[in-house]
């Protein structure tokens, strides 16, 4: 495998890690918002506590996967990075607003003791930002596939195809789906949260159905708005799509059967199928019609040293990360 392809594989794997881990953190924020819309204040507070506890120790480490994707992209494919960023100026800037406000609102609520704004305001900001971020990142990903982005195109260009808006929506419902599935298991681990298992199970099922529906609506627009990538999708990505669909339905089944650990696996694989299918269809283009990965890549010697550094770095980071996940398998509820 060439260094360029290896770099792409690392970027896609990091993106998957981001989607599966940080995605669920954002999805949790979405459920926080919906919980706030209901009438039952006490029940909403219960859900919020669990959601907040599930983020606590891991959200920052989960978030670093995104930084890693960005750094790999600008180091590995510098020529494309500037043009990708400027043509996606508006959605990326809004995603950043979401990232900043989500993180700040989370810690301000957790540690602020209401000193600045009341907790419920930070809750609202946290929830809205948690929905905004995946939506904007979804739009950005969709827009890369359309082939309509050009350096200097209008800042609104990424929003002008229904496909990209639907991609944003898909990101929102999928992150909500992941979060609900993960939270089922989290809730089952502690007697105080047992009663939330059914709540999140129901939410997970709704979100799974919603994700499937969005995908179905999206498909025709995909072929219309992103023809190049869609054609490659038909050629290469059908196995991904099949696995994803299978695991999507499988998730419904195992949720029905109340097998929450298995549900985590099927949910994750369903998401990997969608993102993996897109990545395979996007290859070898970074910005369709403008840059292929090969054109945009850094000099071979730069890529090689980066890859060596990455191997060394991953040897330290991956075991540490797994240790973090292991220590906090059960969410930390009021003990830190």
């Amino acid at each position, binding site marked *: 495998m060439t260094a360029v392809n290896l770099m792409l594989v690392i970027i896609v794997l990091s993106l998957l890690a981001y989607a599966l881990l940080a995605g669920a953190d954002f999805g949790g924020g979405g459920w926080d918002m919906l919980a706030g819309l209901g009438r039952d204040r006490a029940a909403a507070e219960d859900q919020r506590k669990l959601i907040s506890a599930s983020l606590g120790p891991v959200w920052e480490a989960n978030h670093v996967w995104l930084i890693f994707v960005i750094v790999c992209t600008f180091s590995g494919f510098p020529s494309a990075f500037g043009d990708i960023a400027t043509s996606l100026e508006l959605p990326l*800037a809004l995603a950043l607003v979401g990232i900043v406000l989500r993180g700040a609102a989370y810690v301000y609520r957790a540690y602020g003791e209401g000193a600045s704004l009341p907790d419920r305001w930070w809750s609202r900001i946290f929830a809205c930002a948690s929905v905004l971020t995946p939506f904007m990142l979804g739009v950005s990903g969709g827009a890369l596939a359309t082939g309509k982005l050009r350096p200097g195109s209008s800042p609104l260009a990424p929003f002008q195809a229904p496909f990209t808006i639907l991609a944003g929506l898909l990101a929102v419902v999928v992150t909500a789906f992941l979060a609900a599935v993960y939270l089922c298991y989290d809730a089952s681990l502690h007697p105080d949260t047992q009663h939330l298992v059914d709540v999140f199970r129901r939410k997970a099922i709704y979100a799974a159905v919603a994700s499937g529906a969005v995908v179905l609506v999206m498909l025709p627009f995909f072929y219309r708005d992103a023809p190049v990538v869609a054609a490659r999708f038909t050629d290469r990505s059908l196995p991904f799509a099949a696995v994803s669909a299978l695991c999507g339905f499988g998730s419904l089944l195992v949720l029905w059967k109340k097998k929450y650990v298995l549900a985590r696996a099927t949910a994750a694989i369903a998401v990997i199928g969608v993102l993996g299918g897109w990545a395979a269809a996007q290859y070898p283009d970074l910005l369709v019609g403008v840059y292929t990965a090969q054109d945009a890549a850094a000099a071979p010697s730069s890529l090689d040293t980066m890859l060596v550094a990455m191997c060394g770095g991953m040897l330290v980071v991956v075991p540490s990360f797994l240790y973090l996940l292991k220590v906090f398998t059960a969410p930390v509820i009021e003990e830190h």
Partner: protein
Amino acid sequence: MSGVDAARIETAFSLSFHILFAVFGVGMPWVLLYTEGRWLKTGDQTWYALTRKWARVTAVLFAIGAVSGTVLSFEFGLLWPTFMATYGGAIGLLFTMEAFAFFLEAIFMGLYLYGWKRLTPRAHWLTLWPIAVSGTLSTLFIVFANAWMNDPVGIGESKGKITADPWAVFSSSVGWSEVAHMFVAAMMCTGGAVAAVYAWGMLRGRRDRYHKLGLGVGLWTVLGLTPIQMFLGDWSARVVGATQPLKLAAMEGVYTTGSNVPLTILGYYDQSTHKIIGGIPIPDGLSLLMGFKTGTVIQGMDTATVADTPNSAVIHLAFDSMVGCGVLVFAVAGFAVATWFLRRRKGLTPRIPHTRFWLWSAIATGPASVIAMLGGWEVTEGGRQPWIVYNLMSVTDAATKSGGLAWSVVATIVIYVGLAAALLLILRKLATGAPPELDAGAGPDIPSQAPPAAEEALA
């Protein structure tokens, strides 16, 4: 607003905002290693209470540092696309390594902040090591990237793409002098801020052991590092003189190349007359500092066109703010050492009396360190102008051509100012003195003993 102006304002603002948090991300883990270590060793609950409080503060500061750092990584592309397209591969290795260092920091920060009950006390203390080490390594890699922009060494070309030889990059004296100066600055900002908070508490009458220990840790950190920082600053200035003569000229407002160049304290550099108005010149000072003799020739700004010269009016002011604040802290340090020995000879305790004078001096070290740090960065960045990569690419060429950036500048400022205001309120709330659980009966100098296993009571 043109693209380049907007890009510069937004970058300056986001960098300054981020760095205010980054310094604590670098410094606090080292301080916590000490305080939590003291608790493990002595079982003194005061150390435990301080550690818990600072861990909470660190949690908030680290989170804001992390999200504002994410903004910067996107801004490379959003604001400086041509810079990234040309040199992104060359400095990619540094950023890749920084990403890993940050990764470790975030992972172990999670373990540290939420692991009080899930890890043994010793394992919990040990998680601080990777945080502290990787925080320091983050500084190293990021500042090396910045140093490379100041002094782009090891440049090569391969298949039409620009490369930088990693060995050359890591053996650059610009890099090492900048890194060392910044790391010590981060520690001084941390120490100064801690000292300021506890000195303020004592001024308001909270003269308990908790405040005395907190003040001591902060104050000795900042004062102890000041002499080292003076030495490192001198080294940095020499390196700047050797590699970026125009930056040095702008720092001191030197227009005419020649020997016997004075060092000018304060004053305002007038761009039209090329003279410093209202400064106090020390004859031959700069020549002496740079070459140890009055005959040392200093390259002035007359060797370049105005367009290729940094704005000395700003740079000189920033430089003097940094040096002035540094000297102030240095004077406090010198006076503290003298007082310490004097009072030891007389057998007086505490060695540094907690009088209003000393408490106000301790408070001053906090803002002074932070102003010096920000002033230093203005010198580094402003002094490199008009270049983004010294002598190779101008800031104007590097910037985005997008016209719609004014809204993004405004949004950045509004959001960051709002978050900073909320943060100040939260920090004020957190700074409410010793927790009530801490044995109130313990006198100011008597440690309240309890074995580390008794943490549950305070957790």
